[in-house]
């Protein structure tokens, strides 16, 4: 029974996961829900919805994560993030092995994220993977981070051939499978949607713990229903967020100066005359950028004639985005598949899973060719494990 360990560190999350692919459909239900977490689980207040989909044909033996959070108002820097990953990787691997109750000889391959992502953190985790490969004498399998998300999403939700919306801090892509490639139908032409949300959070000094996007989502729930006008930039199946970010940053500064002015002169909504709050800005930003994402996804679905949609990536945890996507899919007679934060946020198990799929087809990454790459397109990967 093939078993793989996966190491992920393309951004500020360090993840280590161990997966088993049963030869047939597992007789006992898989246990994605009893894997332990490190700090993320202790501090996270994310709602953990149980997946109702059919049993995924994989067994998750361990799925650990440790997140590097920078102080409010700052982003995570590559150097500090790499140092974090170096500090934690050995501990996480040991913990994962212990939790999975597997011996070194049970492991078939060492999977790691080759890219895309930030160079320094990618390298620090790749070094760990190479070291394990040498120490344990196991083959290396370099994995495309985006393909990892897609394959994990499919395995967890049972979505067969969905249009995939991959949304995270570094990526915004609408993907559909065709002829052994995950083809990118649409994407952000400038910054990723998660990056747009993160940078907005910095201006409003919204905390980075557990994630800026998560805190924006919670704030938006308290909004008073005011929808301000932001640019709306959809070009075919592509989107652009930099104009929106610039505008909403201006709004945040305007709000700040309105609050600090003496006497206080609140900024009023032109439509309702209600005073604008930071929650309204969060709400406005979410409603606008998510509408764009749902729109390009719907466009891709119409284009390829699909009725299923799968949301992956960190921003994919957002319940408002999931709800909007659900209405859209239902209107088209289809359905939305989503995962919770254990799988949509960067994790090691998705790297182990996608790596193991490739390894079973005979793919290995030679040590000499195991360098990381910050830019690694989703459509560069030959997906020969699918028809």
């Amino acid at each position, binding site marked *: 029974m093939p078993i793989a360990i996966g190491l992920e560190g393309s*951004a500020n999350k360090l993840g280590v996961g161990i997966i088993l692919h049963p030869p047939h459909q597992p007789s006992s239900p898989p246990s994605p829900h009893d894997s332990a977490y490190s700090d993320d689980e202790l501090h996270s207040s994310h709602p953990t919805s149980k997946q109702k989909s059919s049993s995924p044909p994989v067994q998750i033996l361990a799925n650990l994560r440790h997140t590097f959070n920078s102080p409010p108002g700052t*982003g995570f820097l*590559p150097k500090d993030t790499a140092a974090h990953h170096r500090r934690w990787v050995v501990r996480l691997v040991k913990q994962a092995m212990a939790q999975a109750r597997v011996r070194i000889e049970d492991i078939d391959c060492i999977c790691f994220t080759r*890219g*895309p*992502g*930030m160079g320094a953190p990618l390298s620090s985790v790749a070094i760990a993977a190479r070291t394990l490969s040498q120490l344990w004498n196991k083959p290396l399998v370099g994995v495309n981070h985006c393909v990892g998300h897609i394959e994990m999403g499919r395995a967890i939700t049972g979505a067969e051939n969905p249009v995939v919306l991959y949304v*995270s*801090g*570094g*990526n915004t892509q609408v993907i*559909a499978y*065709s*002829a052994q490639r995950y*083809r*990118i*139908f649409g*994407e952000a*032409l*400038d*910054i*990723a949607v*998660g*990056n747009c949300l*993160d940078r907005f959070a910095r201006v409003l000094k919204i905390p980075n713990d557990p994630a800026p996007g998560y805190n924006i989502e919670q704030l938006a729930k308290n909004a008073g229903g005011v*929808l301000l*006008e932001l640019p*709306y930039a*959809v*070009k*075919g*199946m*592509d989107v652009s967020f930099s104009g929106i970010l610039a505008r909403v940053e201006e709004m945040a500064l305007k709000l700040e100066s309105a609050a600090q002015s003496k006497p206080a002169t609140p900024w009023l909504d032109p*439509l309702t005359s209600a005073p604008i709050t930071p929650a309204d800005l969060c709400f406005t930003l979410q*409603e*606008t950028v998510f*509408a764009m994402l*749902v*729109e390009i996804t*719907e*466009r891709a*679905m*119409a*284009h390829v*004639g699909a*009725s299923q949609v799968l949301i992956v990536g960190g921003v994919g945890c957002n319940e408002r985005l999931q*709800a*909007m*996507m659900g*209405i*859209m899919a239902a*209107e*088209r*007679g289809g359905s939305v598949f989503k995962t919770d934060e254990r799988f949509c946020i960067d994790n090691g198990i998705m790297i182990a899973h996608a790596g193991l799929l490739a390894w079973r087809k005979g793919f290995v990454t030679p040590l000499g060719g195991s360098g990381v790459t*910050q*830019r690694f*397109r989703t459509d560069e990967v030959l997906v020969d494990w699918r028809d």
Partner: protein
Amino acid sequence: MADAASSSARVNALHKFPPPFDTSDESFELIAQGAESLLYRTTFSTTGQPAALKVRPEKKWRHPILDKRLTRARILAEARVLVKLSGEGIAAGGSTPGKRAKVKQPKEGEKGVAGLRGFVPAVLALDWERGWMMTEWVYGRTVKQAIHDTQAGRRAVEREQRLQDLKELLRRIGEVVGKLHASGVIHGDLTTSNMMLRPYDATTPDPTSTDSLDGDVVLIDFGLSTQSVSDEDRAVDLYVLERAFGSTHPREEDLFPEVLTAYAENEGSGMNGKVGKLVLRKLEDVRMRGRKKSMVG
């Protein structure tokens, strides 16, 4: 008028026609359910000529204020562009009605040689508050369908003929997109589903099964169009088409440069010469940005 493939998706049974069509006694045939709109074949003329009714139903997933704003803006953007293009060679000084109609005029020497009048459907009526637009019916198949319909013959001669026909079609596409850009319009959603291949003898009814790639390329679906003469906007428009073409027609992807060549070189394009070259250079930048943009974050 649009391809049958996209109409296979189910129509929301709850969808009602906006007035006055809710009390009409004409027939409506659903042709396509696109992402944004429903397209019906009906009539709008006392002579019984067919017409295309495009209805933009409310999108319940987006905020109602945003939904209303976008529906209105897109219906109007589309109608303004179509009317502007139908006035090429007619309008004095290129004026279009509407207070907010910002009409960007191309610089001297950039103007399309023949213009696009007759290569886009004419607007017959619209109601931007109620979210519908009636246009002239365009006969023929989508370019996407036409390309899918052509069979590569067994014999080398046939294969060579198909290749030549495809190249010829792609050059006509390049020319028509050039004309559009030369008229100061960016389509915003160029795909082979948004191009009709209208038989040269347009009085014949829709051809049911034909292998021919002959015909005029007629642009439709201007819902995301803007008026601009910037090289950047033009390059992004081409980039959208390039990517859509590659993902829709992976086997014909290698032929796409024919579109660009015709765009920048053909006499009929209106973008031939220096301007076209600049746009193609910009296109390289846009490609680089798309494929190699920073993944940091």
